[in-house]
């Protein structure tokens, strides 16, 4: 066992955390820079080379799709879109969830009761169907996907932040601030929020795969990202239609999507262990 102390030390000492972060970083780097290194682009069609299997020599290392487009570049584009949607959606849920939970937890009393009852009510809703309804009613707007997914995912964050705030507000340093006349918004911002970072980071790593899941679900149903743009969910959908003749169209994006989700889930689990260790000294 390494005897390193401090949060950064414990994070660096946890092999799962380091491994997951490294691989995710690598995937992100390839997704961002890979298309520049390839001589293909995501739009060009080549009808002489339709549904071609992966080859090194031909330059299409992931093969080509039903329109002869290079699958490597399209997959990288898909990863970019998928991760971008997930990050923005998670940021939306982070802002709403932390603010909502902190206010409810700090206020206590009837305001807390009303706010949490509202969260309970939303929990019981079939959200994904409301999102689909939203997509049908207002068209497949990219921004709308971000906001819709973020609007689903803030509930967990709000609950967890509220629970933490409830215990934090009874701590001596918060009481000291209150007694010396620091106004409530300032206490929340300067004294409570910094102490929430640990929990928030852990739940953020678990929110990101959820957001990826929702986005790819919508894209799979043809309700998310639209052609010629693409995402991993849309690529899996295209792959399903071609799986008898060209299984690589299904397997490559499917495996990549699964791997990214798996890495995020492992990372979240490992981070929870690291942060939990601090709670029980």
């Amino acid at each position, binding site marked *: 066992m390494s005897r390193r102390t401090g949060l950064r030390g414990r994070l660096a000492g946890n092999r799962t955390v380091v491994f997951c972060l490294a691989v995710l970083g690598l995937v992100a780097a390839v997704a961002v820079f890979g298309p520049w290194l390839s001589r293909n682009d995501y739009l060009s069609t080549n009808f002489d080379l339709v549904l071609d299997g992966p080859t090194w020599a031909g330059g299409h290392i992931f093969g080509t799709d039903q329109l002869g487009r290079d699958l490597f570049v399209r997959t990288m584009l898909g990863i970019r879109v998928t991760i971008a949607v997930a990050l923005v959606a998670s940021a939306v849920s982070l802002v709403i969830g932390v603010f909502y939970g902190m206010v409810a937890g700090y206020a206590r009393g009837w305001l807390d009761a009303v706010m949490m009852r509202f969260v309970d*009510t939303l929990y*019981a*809703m*079939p959200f*994904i*169907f*409301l999102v*689909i*309804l*939203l*997509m*049908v*009613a*207002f068209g497949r707007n990219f921004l709308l996907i971000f906001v819709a997914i973020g609007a689903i995912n803030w509930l967990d964050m709000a609950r967890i932040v509220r629970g933490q705030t409830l215990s934090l507000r009874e701590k001596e340093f918060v009481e000291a601030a209150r007694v010396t006349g620091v106004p409530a918004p300032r206490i929340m911002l300067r004294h409570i929020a910094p102490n929430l970072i640990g929990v928030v980071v852990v739940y953020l790593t678990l929110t990101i*795969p959820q957001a990826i*899941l929702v986005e*790819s*679900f919508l894209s*799979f*149903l*043809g*309700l998310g990202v639209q052609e010629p743009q693409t995402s991993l*969910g849309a690529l*899996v*959908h295209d*792959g*399903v239609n071609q*799986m*008898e003749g060209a*299984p690589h169209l*299904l*397997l490559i994006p*499917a495996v990549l*999507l*699964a791997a990214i*989700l*798996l890495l*995020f*889930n*492992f990372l979240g*689990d490992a981070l929870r262990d690291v942060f939990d260790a601090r709670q029980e000294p």
Partner: protein
Amino acid sequence: MLRYALLRVLGAIPTLLLVIVLAFLMVHAAPGGPFQDPRGLPPETLKALQEAYGLDQPLLVQLWRYLSHVVRGDFGPSYHYVGYSVGELIRGTLPVSLLLGTLAILLAVLAGVACGTLAALRRNSALDRLLMGIAMTGISIPVFVVAPVLVLVFAVKLHWLPAGWTGSGGLARLVLPVIALALPQIAYIARLTRAGMIDVLGSDYIRTARAQGLGTAAIVRYHAFRPALVPVLSYLGPAIAAILTGAVVIEEVFGIPGLGELFVRAAGNRDYMVVLGVVVLYAVLVVALNLAVDILYGVIDPRVRRR
């Protein structure tokens, strides 16, 4: 107990009302309305259509009319399949979806509890690590990736099972959809069971039972099972919701003429009343099943009732 159940039922009503109103307003806020046609309808036709469907009334009147009809089980007419009511379309597709969902949830609970118990009893063994590794993978891989890969392996390559919904009937066509639908839930339930079981097996009264000479099988069966499964029970609500959501994809992949397939098709056709009706039905299902789980929770764990 009756008071607890009654309070739960009353608590579910605002949720339902909120979903219906929200869904209704979303549909009616859509730009263009249901009769938007790329070829352009003559204004008098459009006006006649709107009058026929009552769309010229103020929004609140329409909302009230919709709510009062829904209470009586009338979801209005389909705008796309002229002459069909939404209720008829739903009745035609609901049974197969219910069958699929029920089988999937049964499989998920049975297989999940079995794997989780096994892993807990052989804690930290190779078997435990293998099962939990598989479970983590199962949780991470979305239904719409599992389903096509299963089809590719077992139908396209091995020819063991049918790839789609063959008209001839038979149980074989249910196997792949049910497995694909249940797999992520099996994984989640296995993790919950393992955690619950390990927690319970470490408690004092289990040690006492062991000291009295009870074997492992009897301890698990008579003493550990019930308390260990409480977290699984409380997960059933979300599991049912997830299976309903997953069924949309599964029906799409396997070409099953169920409720989810109807929903996606209606979404594509902008058949607003059908989309609205299915959302309302899903909401009723999710809320009712959550309610059932909540009440069951109160039956099994008396501490819950007093809160």
